């Protein structure tokens, strides 16, 4: 009986998003056909660019790494009922802090310490950035969506300010940047691949986040507060502390993504940090319905789609923005699918036969 009921709900939770993905693929095909491209050629090109070869798949994984981390910035607070979209800002702040920390210890510390310092700095900076959003929410009732959005712009301005002035490497002419992290201190690649260790960070953090939410007392408390604040208060749970803590963790994940981008990809902080991984992370979180494990899988799918942009342009003459259209369609269809949960009889638990009220005194 136990497994039976779980089976149905799991099936619903898996089949509705998959159906949504398939339907958005179909809509996207229609869109491409209307734009004069052969939909099947487009599907084929995306598949090839994303997963078609080991080379392509590694590209996909490199893009998936920051997405896994930024998606948590939306997914974790969502369990508390908050919509936070400050992923981009937290990523940027994490990147800046990582560079600052890396540069300040690089002269005397061994690479492992430099990397650790960068990671910790990224985590703390991102965490404080979104933690502030949580604190504003709790203490001043400032809408967390809007404040986190504004903080994105502030973070990007801060980045531009720092790389253009106080932290600028005078030798970076066309694209103002900070001094580079010494190559020896950069994140290496996983053996036998071109994929950097950031992917491992992403997967490990997603697993930790899942474990934290589903399997720890902290996660239980957070889910309770997210489901019903009144019930949480009646159980004496500290709702304000939970809000700030979850926001801190969310921001620190995105901050770590910034560190990964700096330490593994760019080697320095400049405007390339602001590469829309934050906004794509929001999409990942929503498609994954804020489940961190699902987010890591969705991040790989979306990383593949992002990686296919240039191929679509080269092979089919479609603008690279095609992938944004696709992302937008997926997002819209996935949101619509939210309204479908519980609508299909097949996923419903069969009702237990309730005996007449005389034998069930409490069945009011």
């Amino acid at each position, binding site marked *: *009986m136990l497994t*039976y009921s779980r089976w149905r709900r799991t099936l619903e939770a898996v089949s509705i998003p998959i159906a949504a993905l398939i339907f958005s693929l179909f809509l996207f095909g229609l869109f491409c056909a209307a734009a004069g491209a052969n939909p099947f050629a487009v599907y084929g090109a995306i598949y090839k660019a994303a997963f078609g070869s080991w080379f392509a798949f590694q590209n996909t994984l490199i893009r998936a790494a920051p997405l896994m981390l930024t998606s948590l910035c939306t997914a974790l607070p969502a369990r508390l009922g908050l919509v936070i979209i400050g992923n981009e800002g937290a990523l940027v702040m994490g990147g800046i802090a990582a560079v600052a920390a890396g540069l300040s210890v690089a002269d005397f510390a061994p690479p492992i310490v430099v990397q650790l310092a960068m990671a910790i700095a990224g985590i703390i900076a991102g965490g404080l950035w979104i933690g502030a959003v949580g604190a504003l929410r709790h203490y001043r009732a400032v809408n967390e969506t809007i404040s986190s959005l504004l903080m994105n712009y502030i973070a990007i301005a801060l980045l531009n300010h720092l790389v253009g002035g106080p932290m600028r490497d005078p030798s970076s002419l066309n694209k103002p940047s900070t001094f580079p992290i010494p190559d020896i201190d950069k994140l290496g690649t996983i053996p036998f691949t071109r994929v950097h260790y950031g992917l491992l960070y992403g997967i490990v953090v997603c697993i930790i986040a899942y474990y934290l939410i589903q399997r720890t007392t902290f996660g239980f408390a957070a889910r309770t507060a997210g489901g019903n604040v009144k019930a949480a208060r009646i159980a004496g749970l500290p709702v304000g502390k939970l809000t700030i803590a979850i926001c801190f963790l969310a921001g620190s994940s995105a901050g770590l993504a910034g560190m990964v981008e700096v330490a593994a990809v760019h080697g320095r902080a400049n405007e390339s940090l602001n590469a829309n991984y934050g906004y794509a992370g929001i999409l990942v979180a929503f498609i994954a319905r804020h489940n961190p494990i699902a987010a890591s899988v969705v991040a790989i799918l979306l990383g593949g789609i992002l990686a296919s942009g240039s191929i679509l342009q080269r092979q089919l003459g479609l603008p690279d923005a095609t992938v944004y259209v696709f992302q937008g369609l997926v997002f819209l269809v996935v949101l619509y699918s939210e309204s479908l949960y519980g609508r299909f009889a097949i996923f419903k638990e069969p009702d237990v036969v309730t005996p007449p009220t005389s034998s069930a005194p409490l069945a009011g």
Partner: protein
Amino acid sequence: MKPAVKTIEMKELTLPPELEVVNMTKQFGQLIALDNVSLTLKPGTFHALLGENGAGKSTLVKCVMGFYKPTSGEVRFNQQVQAIDSPRDAQKHGIGMVYQHFTSVPAMTVAENLVLCRYESAALIDWKAEYEVLNAFMATAPFKLPLSVPVAQLAAGEKQKLEILKQLYLKSKILILDEPTSVLTPGEADEVLGLIREEVVAGHLSVLLISHKFREVTAFVDEITILRKGKFAGSGRVKDLTIADMAEMMMGEKRIPQTVQKTLHPDPAPVLQIQAIHANKDNGLEAVSGVDLTVNSGEIVGIAGISGNGQRELVEVLAGQRTATDGQVLVNGEVYRASRTEMFQHRVFVLPEEPLKNACVPHMSVAENLALRTFDRPPQSKGWVLLFKPIREAAQSLIKTFNIKTPSPETPISNLSGGNVQRTVLARELSSDHINLLIAANPCFGLDFAAVDYIHSEILEARNRGVAVLLVSEDLDELLKLSDRILVISEGKFAYESSIAEADFASIGRSMAGH
């Protein structure tokens, strides 16, 4: 523009029609909510409809207003049978209803709300003309409101006046007022009812007032009709009746507290001490104004009162859902702020009203909801790690003991019936064998007799084990049956206190009514 002008010109001195409700019955499935009730609202009278919760008062007026279609029976205006199929029909016959909750748009001004409530008005609003009409209307209206002030800035009493003004503006001749004073202070209530009474005396209006405040009834009302359990229980002229008569008709024959198995607790010690607690309502007005109370071990203290007199806020403060603005709560002699540690240390448990809304997480499973108090303690967790096996086993055992009907412990609790949700909360809050303090608010609301007996016996058993129980209820019978001591809360203060042996039914009723 033009229609508004007519509104005022039509306000001539014609008496409102006589409204008769004849042999009305309304059945919801098996339940007979209203059983063959008749009522006559004579032109130009102030008539009250009295009865306890669930006596059928709102069913009756909703049938008259066209919200419900009665199973049988009819409505007559001046001896003419009329079918009323919708509130709009009722409006056509000049009946308007004022609800318990406000139906004005808070961000709009008084004038805008008045204009908006007209079913027919022009697409463009000529405010100059409208204001002239509205000012003329206000000049003749029983109470004055500033036209250009947003409703959100009005006090509760003024908002309620606006609701009534709307009906006058719509030329309603018969007003049905559904507990219009439940949100007002006694002063405001007297003012509003007094001014309406003047309109009634002048022959402009007939009023049907739903109330359970005897004070208002004796002060303003001409005639009453009393319902009990869906049936007609009596009627008469107010000046011929005493409050005791009315209370007796409302509640049935005078009731002697039922004797129950109570064991005397050897050495009672104070468990809960409430000291000068103040708390506000959601809208910032004070709801609890400085109450003091001590509940000893092995004692049930009952708090009676009409809803809206601060008892909900008091319970929320004790349950940790609301912050007190002043005063403190002690449990076992220590300051208690309803943190999780304190709850555990002092073993405080709560049975709130509306358990799905107040004490459950709807989309979480029955097992998780059962674990809400214990998930962070061994054996259900080890350090930070949740242990699912003990959680599920504990749930299975509670589901069995408390006879919760659920497909599985993993089913979301919102899929369960109301009674089973209540059982789940009961299981969570009463299963612990070392409860020290139990706070219960209307624990039996909406349940059938068998369920009520079950909960009562659980509460009594807890008391006999030495638990201190604070029981807040709107059901006087329940309180008289269970309590060792009874208090009445009225307007945020305790208005009456007595041991159950010396409790006087009539004085309790009067204190509840604010006397």
